[in-house]
Every structure is written in structure tokens, then in C-alpha cells.
């Protein structure tokens, strides 16, 4: 309720941003890759008031006095969407470690709009990102999709109900110590200390949510519990779970839990997805792939023992498993477009690769109504590249976020 209010306001702000430059903007003559049905070798994109008005070939007409930018020899694509951005939040604020299960936490409370990560992502063609709590909790909290432009969270916000962070594998139990009698000293003497314990925590939370839901339907006056409210929304399918699962066993566990409680889940950083494609297709699961160029998992996930393969994206594409490419927590060093470029190097088709960093994440994150492709009515998030985006020598020459130039 409150959140939708928030979103509306954000939208209003974006519109306001557009009104500032009320003039019609036309990108003319470039090779337009819409990431939708049709591409236009000699294309036209018309933008007005922060929205895309028209997309098409040379035939598209536009009013006099419109500002026309000549894009001959250049490539026009939708703004990129990084479904796995790791910047914008200070390290300690990424996880609320006071408890293992904190579904009511919202990443919006800790987004740091001045973080340079936003500017850098923007300059590399990324116009929207998913930010979500970290993996140190079993159930971490709510993620959000934000634009990479605008000084305040409200201006940047696109959607704040994109997913609930659940984490499998070694990270949630890392640092915890077993209780084994005696007095528990300190915060980290607690469960879980094993993968089993992690799963057990998830089960306990969701079965509690089930009871709470029944109790509430029977007795209207049961005191509201914000944490369980969130889990109930998951159970009722209003909210998607984003499960971090790198190693094969974790991926399978994540799918098992999802089917057990009947909720929808996205598999985050599914490094070993190439090993359980059958399961993924069977469960109609969707994946977020981190850092395709990595030869080994580094950072917090190293303990999961997952082994990357270079052609994972290509295999998923063949098997028809919907997936998006993210920069991810593994290697944040390169920009999103270059991660996709490596996927292409390793065998992924360029069109699929482009969709994997535009419309695919938009769909997975439930913001495809506003972002992800060049289509009339969508936000004017557009990138003009100096050439083929998957050529390593190409640079983004113009980045528009909500119709406003975002390149310095």
C-alpha cells in the first residue's frame, strides 16, 4: 500500500524530470536493437517527456522543432539493467545480522544515492539496477529496482517489491558457532551452522507464515506481524523469492523448497546451473548469472565450492531456460555489457546476450512494463553506442535515463 504510493511518487518525479526538457528528442539513423520483436538497421527512436513515443524505421515521423541526434553508424539499444549490482550500499548495511530471518527489512533504508557505483554504472550504459540485501542472512529482506540517476532514493526508485532475498549455501552459516550448552556468548552463537540448518530456518519461517495466515483468516484481530506479512505475500504469490544458490546442490535445494511451499523463486548467481538444466526446465525456473568471464568463484561465495563453466549462458539459452546476466558479487570489476560480451565470446548469440541484459532482467524483476526494451510507452532509458556493443572497443556515447542525458 505505502510502497505503491512510493512508486507513484517516483514515477511522478521521473515525469517531472522529463518536463524539464519538454522538447521532443529524436535518435535518427542508427542501427536500433530494440530487444523486442523487431530491429531496425536504419531506425528512428522518438522520445518525449521521459518516455519513448515511437520506434521504427526511416518512415517514422516526428514534429518540427524536435531535437534530432544523428546516430548514423551507431547502435541504439535499451538502457542496460544490472540484476546483480553490488554497489550503492555500505558493507555493514547490506545484512541485518541481528537475526537470521529478517524478511521485513528493505534495502531502500540503506541505499546510498551518492555512491559512485551509480555514476560509473550509468557511464557504462546501465540505466537501472537491482539492489537487494546480502547473503549473510537466511532470509535477508526486500530488494528494489532503482534507476542509476537522481540524487535521492525517491527519484531513483522504479519498484521496491522486486524480490525477497533468501540465501542457500555456506554464506548464511559462515561465522555462526554452535550453541552446544553453556551460555550463548555474543550474537553469532546460534543456528544455523550448516547447510541443513539454513534450510531448516527457511522451513521454520514459512511454516510459521502459513500458521499466521490461517490464524489471521480466522481471527481478524490477531496483532499484525510485519515480518510474517511479507512471507505471507510470498506464499500468496504476490512476491518473488530471489534465492542465492551457486553450487548444484544448493540450486536443487532452492527448487525443492520453492515447490514445497509453492512460491516462485529466481535463482541468483546460479554458477552451476549448467549441471541441473533438467531440473531448471522442469521447474520452469529463471536464473541470474554472475560474471560469466570468471574461471573460479571468488569472494563470499568461494566456500560454496561451485565451479563456473564458460558456456553456462549458452547452454541455458539452448535449453530455453530464461536467464539474465548480472555483474554479481563475484567480479565487480567490469561493466555489465562486457560480462555479456564474454558470454558471446563463450558461445552465446549476440541477440540473446543483449536480451539477457535488457528485457530478460526487466521481466524477471517484474518491471518490463516500464523498462527493458525500446517500445512506445516505456521509459526513455536509451544507450547510443559507438558501434556494436559487444565489440570490446565500443563505448557508450550517449546514455539517456528518463530522457535526460546522463553521460558527463
Amino acid at each position: 500500500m505505502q510502497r505503491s504510493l512510493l512508486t507513484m511518487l517516483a514515477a511522478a518525479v521521473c515525469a517531472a524530470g522529463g518536463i524539464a526538457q519538454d522538447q521532443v528528442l529524436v535518435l535518427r539513423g542508427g542501427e536500433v536493437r530494440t530487444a523486442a520483436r523487431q530491429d531496425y538497421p536504419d531506425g528512428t527512436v522518438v522520445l518525449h517527456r521521459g518516455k519513448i513515443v515511437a520506434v521504427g524505421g526511416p518512415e517514422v515521423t516526428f514534429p518540427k522543432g524536435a531535437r534530432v541526434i544523428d546516430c548514423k553508424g551507431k547502435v541504439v539499444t535499451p538502457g542496460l539493467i544490472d540484476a546483480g549490482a553490488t554497489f550503492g550500499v555500505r558493507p555493514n548495511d547490506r545484512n541485518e545480522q541481528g537475526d537470521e530471518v529478517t524478511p521485513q527489512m528493505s534495502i531502500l533504508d540503506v541505499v546510498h544515492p551518492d555512491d559512485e557505483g551509480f555514476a560509473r554504472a550509468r557511464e557504462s550504459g546501465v540505466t537501472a539496477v537491482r539492489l537487494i540485501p546480502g547473503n549473510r542472512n537466511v532470509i535477508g529482506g526486500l530488494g528494489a529496482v532503482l534507476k542509476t540517476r537522481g540524487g535521492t532514493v525517491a527519484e531513483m526508485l522504479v519498484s521496491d517489491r522486486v524480490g525477497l532475498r533468501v540465501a542457500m549455501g555456506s554464506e548464511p552459516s559462515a561465522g555462526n558457532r554452535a550453541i552446544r550448552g553453556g551460555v550463548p556468548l555474543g550474537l553469532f552463537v546460534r543456528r544455523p551452522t550448516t547447510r541443513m540448518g539454513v534450510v531448516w530456518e527457511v522451513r521454520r519461517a514459512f511454516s510459521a507464515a502459513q500458521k499466521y495466515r490461517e490464524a489471521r483468516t480466522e481471527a481478524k484481530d490477531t496483532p499484525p506481524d510485519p515480518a510474517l506479512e511479507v512471507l505471507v505475500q510470498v506464499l500468496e504469490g504476490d512476491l518473488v523469492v530471489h534465492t542465492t544458490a551457486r553450487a548444484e546442490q544448493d540450486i536443487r535445494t532452492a527448487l525443492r523448497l520453492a515447490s514445497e511451499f509453492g512460491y516462485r523463486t529466481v535463482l541468483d548467481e546460479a554458477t552451476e546451473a549448467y549441471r541441473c538444466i533438467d531440473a531448471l526446465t522442469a521447474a520452469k525456473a529463471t536464473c541470474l548469472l554472475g560474471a560469466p568471464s570468471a574461471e573460479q568463484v571468488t569472494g563470499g561465495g568461494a566456500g560454496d565450492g561451485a565451479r563456473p563453466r564458460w558456456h553456462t549462458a549458452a547452454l541455458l539459452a539452448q535449453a530455453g531456460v530464461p536467464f539474465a546476466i548480472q555483474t554479481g558479487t563475484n567480479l565487480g570489476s567490469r561493466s555489465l555489457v562486457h560480462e555479456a560480451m564474454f558470454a558471446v565470446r563463450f558461445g552465446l548469440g549476440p541477440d540473446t546476450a543483449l536480451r539477457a541484459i535488457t528485457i530478460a532482467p526487466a521481466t524477471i524483476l517484474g518491471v518490463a512494463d516500464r523498462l527493458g526494451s525500446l517500445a512506445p510507452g516505456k521509459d526513455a532509458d536509451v544507450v547510443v553506442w559507438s558501434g556494436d556493443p559487444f565489440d570490446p572497443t565500443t563505448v557508450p556515447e550517449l546514455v539517456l535515463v528518463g530522457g535526460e542525458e546522463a553521460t558527463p
Partner: protein
Amino acid sequence: MLSLLCAFAACAPQSDPQPPALLISAKTIVVAPDLVLTDGRLLLRGGKVAAVGASVPQEVGPDVHRVDLGDATVVPGLVVAHTCLDAERDLAETVTAYTPELRAVEAYDPYGKGVAEMLAGGVTAFGIAPRSANTLAGLAGAVKTDPRAGSVLRNESYLLAAIVPEALDQQRFPTSRMGALDLVRTAFRTAAGPLAAQTPDREVLRDVLSGALPFVVHARTHDEVARALDLADPARDGVLAGSGARLFLLGAGGAHRAVDRIAALAAGVVIEPLHPGLAPEALALPAALAARKVRLAFSAGSPRELRVSAALAVRHGLPRAAALAAMTAWPAAMLGIDDRCGTLHQGKDADLVVFDGDPVDLGARVIAVCLQGHPVAGDPGLLARD
């Protein structure tokens, strides 16, 4: 030297319980930041301000001791809105982060060294606050810098909440700002809820919601401040929105881009001690806020800190009058003690400081301090009947 002052300050008041009537004339008398008398007169009687300027009768009785301070400046006793003095350890209950009903005055030691120093520097009243180590840290109270017991003016001046990093603890809930803000929201929601049982902590939170008690949030960086303001922002569906709550900010050093929202949503800002090392924007913030009619006060551990903050603020564009108000009238109002302190209007307590210049200039010296009519610091002979 300080210890000597302390001893002096300690004994002086007891020595004569009923202060003498005093007629002060000076080149400059600042009755209030907006009312400054030149070559004015001030009549103190019974520890109160009996008359100011024109209202002072030409002829006063022989019992009145006349003092001509020449070209000195008389200002109301300075007021510090937020301090922990040196009772640091006692002012935070670290077992849990939710301690709204704890009172700082109960850990206040009127004989502490810090108090004497405050007095010597011209601070006659201050708000003693819990340390920002807890999310809902507790209640700040207002006291006179008067080493006698019973100097407490108010037990509950405002409720202090902190979302700064030092309020987070990696060994207990909350460890992140997500958790801290969740704690604050949940606390107010439950307190406001009809089903909530009556407990002391909820009483406090309800007083905040009713506006009876100011709510001070310690937030420093731009995003901390933004989240603090969200609490009172109807557009963000803040927990305090729509209620009568009065939101103050403590710190706000990084808020130079949020001044307009602050002006719209906050009742005032308490500036953390300024030092030359801070970023220029942080030093210019008081000026920016004052320009938007935001009421300011200072947090300070000592009078030196108070005056350095004021001086630096003025150095970066804060008008002198505003700086003086931030050291007297405004903090008094915020602490809810403006019926007695903060100005020298008729009927107020006779708390005043005599400077040999403008207190906003660091070059100005404290000549004398008068507390409820008693000369308590500075040159003892100056205001006392010889």
C-alpha cells in the same frame, strides 16, 4: 584555574541564599537576539530579571548595588541543546537498542568537573542526553549548570534516537541501518496501535506522537538524514506523518543537499561540534539552514566547543544574530525551558554572561557569569557587593 573556579562556584551560592538586587548598565545588553540595548540598563532582583531598559525606574532603592560594565557585552546565559558531558559510560544501556524510557538526568552528576567548566565558560543551562549508542537511546533532560542538587529543570526534554553507525552494534540487533529504521517504525506503530498494552516505553513514544515531547534523531550523512526525514514525510508514509510529532535532527553534517526538505519537515537542527577539518559544505550548513528559517542549536561537550562551533559557522556565513540565538533562545525553547532561560526578558531567571566583546568572536573573554542573580564565575568582585 578551572578547579579553583569550580570551588568558588560551588561555595558562592550557598554563602548568601538571597542574592542582592543588582542594577547593571553596559554598552551592549543583548536581552534577546532580536532585542539589543545600547547603553542599556538591567535590574536583577531575587534571582530574576526585574526590569529591562526603559522599564528600569530612574531611581532605585539604596539596597540596589549599581555596576557599570563600561563597553562590555551582556548576553543571556548560554544554553547547550545536547551534551553527554563526561558521564559517557552511564549514558547508554548497551544490552538492548530499545531504551526509550531511560532518563539521562538520572545519570547526571551536578558536581562533575564538566559542569564547573560549562559554568566558567558562560553556559548556564544545557540538555543532558543519552549517548548515541542505542537506536531509541532514551530521554534527554534539561539542567542548570548549578552545582547544587535540585538543579534539574526538566526530566524529559526530548527523546533521542540514533541511526548513525555508532548506534549499530555487530553483536546485537540492529547491526544495520535497515534494522535500526525497522526498529523505530515498529516501535511507533505498536505504541500507536489500539491493542498495545500501557508500558512506560510506549507512554514516551505516545508523548512524542502527541507532540508533547520533541523527537531528536541523530543522523549525519545525506542518506541518514533523508531516511530520518522520511519518518515525518507523509509522501513517504512516515510513522510520524500526520501525528503532532516535532522532529529535530542532531548532526546532519552531510545534509547540505537536503536543506529544503529539512526546512519543510523538521522543527530544528542541533549542530554537532564543528571543527576546521570538516568539509566546507558541512561548515556552511548552519548558514544554509538559517537562510531557510530553520532553528538551530549546538551540541557541545564544553563551552569552548560551543563557541568554536558558533565562530566557524559565522566564518562560513551564519549571521551573528542567528549564531547568538542558536546559543541562547532557540535551544532553550527546544529544551522546553524558555519560560526561565534563553533571554533576559522581564521575569526570566537572572542568568547572564558578561563578555568583553561579541561572544561569537573567539577573541572575546568571559568577564563574569551570573546565575540566578549570583555572581558565580569570572571576576568575582565585578558583580558582587564589596
